[in-house]
């Protein structure tokens, strides 16, 4: 079991969970305060549950073009982007954040999916020329600042110029004498920034950030991601069959105009063949349904729940369901278990950052 480099700074009573062999903080103190931080001020997220995998060697870019579903031709050491990684059958292995580096790139896995991603990449690299795949997770500490005023925190504790960096840009910089890689990217729809620091120095930086932003656990992070329909891979690919791109509705993470990548032909064939099921968000006032719970209309099964959670600060549930394509639309009343739910238009919460300028 590995632990976070930030664990020594967790407040007493922090609740952690074992997510794929990593102790991940799910709740630091009061979930309502943590949720309010990300939607109203600034939250600090421990991203230790994500793996950092380096793609290196002269063949790194060619390899990345094959294994990533989006085009990395224009990736530089000053840019980042998100992409899916697909298996040969077109099913989703993981969603990654690609950090462009001078010699290759880092792939940041989604939380809890690092082992699957690493195994997949290593298997593909065995047949590739001049490429190395190295798990460097243990060398780094990774945390995020997100919220409508996260830019203010970045300005106060690091550097005001970093706060206004363009979306999906990266800079190598120093913070308190520590070399860090700083990225403007996020998961919750709010202003988002990430700090990738050497593991031995990361704790001090976390402590500094925690003086200005509220540490928030995985429970709040995943709810905030769901609210803006950012995929939460460890829930959305949990079924044994493996989710397809189209079923997940993650088309935006696949660039079908790119000529060749692993899984491309299978995804396009499925697209041409037409829908089987589609994902739609829902809310309701009943108990939180388990994944796989049947969704019905007039007693007839029309789909099943992918996953659902209790909303923080509201007395209802929020979840995703995979339903017949003709019913994958907002504004419908369906039945989950014995409770009525309403299907929703994404995003389910409008991030305050969309109407909050950086000043």
């Amino acid at each position, binding site marked *: 079991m590995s632990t976070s480099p930030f664990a020594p700074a967790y407040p007493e009573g922090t609740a952690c969970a074992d997510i794929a062999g990593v102790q991940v903080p799910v709740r630091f103190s009061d979930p309502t305060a943590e949720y309010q931080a990300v939607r109203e001020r600034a939250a600090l997220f421990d991203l230790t549950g994500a793996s950092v995998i380096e793609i290196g060697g002269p063949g790194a870019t060619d390899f990345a073009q094959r294994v990533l579903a989006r085009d990395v031709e224009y990736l530089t050491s000053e840019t980042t982007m*998100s992409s899916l990684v697909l298996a040969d059958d077109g099913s989703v292995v993981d969603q990654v954040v690609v950090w462009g580096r001078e010699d290759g790139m880092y792939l940041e896995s989604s939380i809890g999916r690092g082992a699957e991603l690493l195994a997949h990449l290593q298997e593909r690299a065995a047949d590739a020329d001049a490429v190395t795949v190295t798990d460097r997770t243990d060398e780094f500490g990774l945390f995020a600042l997100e919220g409508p005023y996260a830019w203010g925190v970045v300005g106060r504790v690091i550097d005001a110029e970093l706060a206004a960096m363009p*979306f999906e840009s990266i800079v190598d910089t120093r913070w308190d004498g520590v070399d860090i890689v700083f990225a403007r990217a996020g998961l919750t729809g709010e202003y988002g920034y990430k700090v990738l620091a050497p593991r031995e120095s990361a704790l001090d930086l976390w402590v500094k950030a925690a003086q200005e932003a509220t540490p928030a656990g995985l429970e709040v992070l995943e709810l905030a991601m769901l609210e*803006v*329909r*950012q995929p939460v891979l460890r829930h959305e690919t949990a079924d044994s069959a493996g989710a397809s791109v189209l079923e997940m*509705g993650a*088309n*935006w993470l696949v660039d*079908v*105009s790119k000529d060749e990548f692993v899984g491309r032909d299978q995804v396009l064939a499925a*697209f041409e063949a037409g829908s089987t099921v589609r*994902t739609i*968000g829902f809310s309701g006032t009943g108990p939180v349904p388990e994944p796989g719970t049947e969704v019905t*209309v*007039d007693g*007839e099964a*029309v789909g099943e729940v992918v996953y659902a959670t209790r909303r923080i600060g509201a007395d209802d549930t929020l979840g995703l369901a995979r339903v017949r394509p*003709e*019913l*994958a*639309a*907002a*504004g*419908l*009343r*369906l*039945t989950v278990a014995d409770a*009525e739910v*309403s299907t929703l*238009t*994404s*995003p389910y919460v*409008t991030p305050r950052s*969309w*109407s909050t300028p950086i000043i």
Partner: protein
Amino acid sequence: MSTLEELRAVADARRQTCTQIKKMIVTRLDLMIDPEWITDDQPLFGRGLELDSLDVLELYVAIEAEFGVALYDSEMSVFGSVGRLAEHVNPALVEQPA
């Protein structure tokens, strides 16, 4: 509780508006994708379709021409997804849940 047929009809009305928006986006912005590749939940800016501020201006013009709806003073939230935009250009979709 509505019947399956009633729900299908409501979903179909929404789909028609969403499809019209997707075709408009692909045509106006010369995107090299099948309009149906865009999902109803897909954000139009930032992540998602990754449109920029010039694209916004183009879309303002296109939406007014195609739907007769002026969005100039609207918040950016109308571009939060194709579905959200559909509700703005066709408010009847919100008024008639099934």
